[in-house]
């Protein structure tokens, strides 16, 4: 398994403002739209989540987000990517920060939030399994998503726990950094790395 740092941009809107951003950092974490739509209790979570994760659902999330957005169990994060520009045939670097800011501020039209977090990524595709993210940007694994490579997407499943979210940065519509809130309960990924200390 790999540990991947990612960003996620969320625009300020009616149901998401500074309070929701800090709540996400402190205890709520970040949830997919499917999870936010559920009214069932915790005991039913497992049975409800079981059928929604699938290759078909991931394809819809990445390739047809316009239709899938309202009820997708996946959550798009970005880790950036390096691409060989197909016409200039030169390297282009699409940073995670640019993609996250693009979504957070709706292309420079509103205030927004950029969350920094880490997720566990499987070295092979497994869209049906919860608990770790899918590295959609990795074309060696996900050739069908090559159309959308520039966004450097990593697709988390269902939710990202608060303890994996390091901080949230707030930007205004001119991409000026306004503030940063750091998660006091953040658990760094080194805690689960395979670097073993001496006894």
């Amino acid at each position, binding site marked *: 398994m790999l540990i991947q740092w990612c960003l996620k941009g969320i625009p300020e809107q009616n149901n998401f403002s500074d309070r929701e951003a800090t709540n996400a950092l402190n205890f709520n974490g970040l949830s997919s739209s499917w999870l936010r739509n559920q009214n069932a209790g915790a005991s039913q979570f497992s049975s409800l989540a079981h059928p929604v994760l699938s290759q078909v659902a991931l394809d819809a999330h990445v390739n047809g987000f316009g239709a899938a957005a309202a009820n997708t169990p996946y959550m798009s994060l970005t880790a950036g990517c390096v691409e060989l520009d197909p*016409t200039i*045939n030169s*390297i282009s670097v699409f940073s995670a*920060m*640019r993609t996250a800011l693009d979504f957070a501020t709706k292309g420079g039209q509103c205030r927004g939030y950029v969350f920094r977090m880490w997720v566990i990524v499987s070295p092979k595709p497994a869209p049906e399994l919860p608990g770790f993210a899918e590295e959609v940007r990795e074309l060696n694994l996900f050739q069908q998503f090559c159309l959308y490579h520039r966004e450097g997407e990593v697709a988390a499943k269902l939710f990202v726990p608060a303890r994996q979210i390091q901080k949230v940065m707030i930007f205004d519509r001119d991409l*000026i950094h306004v503030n940063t809130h750091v998660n006091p309960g953040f658990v760094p990924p080194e805690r689960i790395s395979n670097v073993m200390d001496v006894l």
Partner: protein
Amino acid sequence: MPWLPLLEQDEFSNAADVRLNFLDKFSKQAENLIKEEQFLSDDLVNKKLWLLPSVAALTEAAEIAFATNNTERGLQFTRDALSKIMNEKTNVSSFARMSSLSAILGGSQTILDEDGPILRIPPSSRRQQFSWEASSPVMRAASGTLVAAALASDKPRSNFKLLSRREESGENTKLARIAVTLASETATLPLFEMSRDDDGFLRTDSPKKEDKIFAAMSFLSLHERYAASLRLNMSDKLRWRELRCRAPLIDWPLLLLHLAIRRQKLEPYFYDLPIFMYFKPIFNLKFENAGLAGRLFIFLKSLAEAIDKQTSR
């Protein structure tokens, strides 16, 4: 008035403005933004991790500006992107981009030399050079772009030393020569009065009319490549509406070929070739009769005209 086909002006004007402003802001603030996000140490800051993302944003902004009749702004983005790369130590991966951007602006010279590609940029005639060995697969992948940049450069007929016959050449030179020969853009050389023998080396005599007709057909077929790229962009309707394109909006090598034709004043002769008689309706601006590739031909022709007028002042 160069406006990219498939972008309805009324529908995309606002999206273009929004996108340009975002990319402009990001490129200007990239250093601070990425430093803030990554808690970068001084060592990492020195590596200029923000530079390539900034250049990518400026190049994308130039594409959108060129596609939406904003040539002057597109040229400014091109200049900004080039100056960012030129002010830093160049690596092989950015050489093709440097050649393209500088060729768009005019006055530079991309030379495909036997030992490697060379780029000379005024006013200081600053020179960048790599060996074919150092560049290897990256440079070979960029062969078509380098050919187009060389054709759009100053003194184009002296920019293809790589294709001059030599008794002995090193292995890397041979491989580079093969890569250039295989590039689609190389098939257009006869249009620029460069003929080649069966081995692909340049000949001293002028190309025959038949070779020029084949070259013209090769040139036209490149517009289908461009059309395919735009169709790819359009397939994601949500992002297309916002001009968050998945593939480049402008086919830079093809634009450079249009610029080359214009700068070498080939147009009157070029369009008299028999093959272009079949395309009279296109040149009479009857868009309703032309497929996408044909309309893209008209677009790039008018864009090259607009760029040439602004860069030759």
